[in-house]
């Protein structure tokens, strides 16, 4: 099956044209995004995500290489043709008093209307369609500055949607949203890409959402840009290095997420009955224990009888939900909640032998 390519970059180099020497932020990028694809641009702060998006949207000149949008070079588009190909949602929130959602969305018809911006019947229909698509039906007469952050972001996306472009570029659309709002906006973008065949490119700091929702990832790192489906990016092993300078972070390739690295306290061996409860496992991990499955609960005595001062302390956890038993160096403590279990585990190894 042939994929319809919406954006293609070859040897693209981005940055700022200084008076004497240009400042290159990222170079030699080969990128592609297709119709119907949701592409997440990820990378650390200051790596140039925003610069890349602004270059692709035509706000900043490229330093080298080429950008192809649809069948043509980006430079060959006139301002008004470009506006029919690319719509943009910026990260800054715009506050205009008394502006209604319907008026905001209808500004998206700008490239299609005449000198005075009067909307015809088809424009009105497009506006209503865009409002409905972003889930703001019935909000048309509401003032934009009285919406919640998430609703306002939806309205801004509605404006871009009314612009009716094959490519939509969004600079951190989830930046000021809570977790529900973020999922909401990204799943809306996914739906628009999937159902309406748009190519949607957005930058985000939220790796988990990017890896779980996007069809394709563009990852910017000091080593260069990496492109691929989320699984390929995870498998590349480059995500770990994304925050390599930060020793507090651990990347979990299975879950595809970063975690704050905890002080290592010891090993917790779980009896098979306990191991069945995933919450016990994550709670112990969060408390700094490495969790292992204890396959032979009977022959545990050799560990407790000869504690080696170099090897880490090993706890044994047995029992079932609500009646856990923790054994360590011959002592046994019981716990009736996961919180109690973690607390007891920490206390036991803190005072060895007491």
């Amino acid at each position: 099956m042939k994929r319809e390519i919406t954006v293609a970059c070859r040897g693209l180099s981005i940055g700022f044209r200084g008076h004497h020497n240009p400042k290159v932020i990222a170079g030699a990028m080969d990128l592609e995004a297709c119709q119907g694809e949701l592409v997440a641009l990820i990378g650390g702060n200051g790596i140039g995500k925003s610069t890349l998006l602004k270059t692709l949207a035509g706000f900043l000149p490229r330093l080298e290489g080429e950008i192809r949008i649809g069948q043509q070079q980006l430079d060959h588009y006139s301002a008004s043709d470009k506006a029919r190909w690319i719509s943009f949602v910026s990260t800054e929130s715009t506050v205009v008093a008394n502006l209604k959602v319907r008026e905001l969305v209808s500004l998206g018809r700008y490239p299609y209307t005449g000198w005075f911006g009067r909307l015809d019947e088809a424009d009105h229909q497009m506006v209503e369609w865009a409002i409905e698509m972003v889930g703001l039906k019935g909000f048309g007469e509401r003032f934009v500055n009285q919406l919640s952050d998430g609703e306002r972001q939806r309205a801004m996306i509605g404006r871009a949607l009314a612009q009716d472009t094959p490519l939509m570029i969004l600079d951190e659309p989830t930046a000021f949203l809570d977790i529900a709002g973020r999922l909401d906006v990204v799943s809306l973008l996914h739906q628009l890409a999937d159902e309406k065949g748009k190519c949607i490119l957005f930058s985000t700091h939220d790796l988990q959402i990017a890896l779980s929702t996007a069809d394709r990832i563009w990852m910017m790192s000091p080593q260069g840009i990496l492109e691929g489906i989320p699984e390929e990016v995870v498998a590349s092993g480059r995500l770990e290095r994304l925050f390599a300078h930060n020793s507090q972070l651990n990347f979990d390739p299975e879950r595809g997420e970063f975690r704050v690295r905890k002080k290592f306290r010891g090993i917790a061996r779980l009896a098979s009955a306990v191991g069945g409860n995933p919450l016990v496992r994550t709670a112990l991990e969060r408390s700094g224990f490495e969790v292992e499955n204890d396959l032979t609960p009977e022959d545990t005595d050799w560990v407790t009888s000869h504690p080696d001062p170099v090897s880490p302390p090993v706890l044994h956890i047995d029992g079932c939900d609500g009646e856990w038993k923790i054994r360590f160096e011959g002592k046994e403590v019981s716990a009736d909640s996961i919180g109690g279990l973690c607390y007891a585990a920490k206390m036991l190894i803190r005072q060895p032998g007491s």
Partner: protein
Amino acid sequence: MTSDYKKNLPAYAVLIPALLVFFVLDLMVGSVHFSWSRTLGCLLGNGDCDPQLATILFKFRLPKALTALAAGAALSVAGLQMQTLFRNPIAGPDILGISSGSTLGVALFVLSFGWFFGGTTLFSLAGSWGIVLAAWLGAGAMMLVIVLIASRLKDLMTVLILGLLISSALFSVVNLLQYFSNESSLKLFIIWTMGSLSSTTGDQLMVLVPSVVAGLLLSLFSAKFLDAFLLGERYARSMGMNIKVAYILVFASTSVLAGSVTAFCGPIGFIGIIVPHLVRKFFGSPLHLNMIPASILSGGLLMLIADLLSQLPGSGSTLPVNSVTALLGIPIVIWIIFRNKKMGAI
């Protein structure tokens, strides 16, 4: 946005009659008061009009009232355009120094004119066009400076403060120019600085009114550009706006509007800031095909009211209209600043 016009019918139904009433009131009130019937009779040419009244009415009061209308409309629309362009709720021709730019332009023109030609030909039609042209150029140059500053500094308040600084620097330059100029040109300039609504002559009106009408038309023609600017320049560009054409149109319109008024009435403050806010409050939609006509009418009305207030108190003497607009305007500006804390920009 035809629906908005319908929704605003009640507001227009109050505004337009009020404008007519205050226009006639402005003709009636002055050092000599005329009655409704005599004024209207004379205006509508019912024959019953004594020559003395006709002279006062047509030579002095009608030009003054027309000047008030033109000045109010021009300053309000200039202020509206600047607030949209700079996305700054307290922008206005006086605050950002556009008015002082035109003052400097006029000062340079008048003082050098006096130097070269002397005499009173300055107050001819040609002289009036010269003054207004100098004011436009001064306003345009100042607009350019402010846009350059605003493109480098994103902070709205810093731009305002720099505007105020530059504005006072320009006034100092004007003072220095006066200090170094000869007696005859200085005299001309002083007469010019005493300009007010009531000092416009028929010749000047022939320049002022067409200039303001041209500026307002330009503004109406840039309404779509201004709408796109509401979301900021980046959005405007992403929607395919021709930035160059847009800036040229808005610059030209603002310079012509603010410059023309300053050229003949001197600097009149606060109308340009407050009228757009009052219109936003009572006329709904911030889209400019809605805002511009409403600002024209409201600005005219407010200026007529200011002029009336400047006549009323002692009835014998006239207050400077500039002080009246300041007294009217400052409380409203304070309200804007307080409200803006929670409502955000324009």
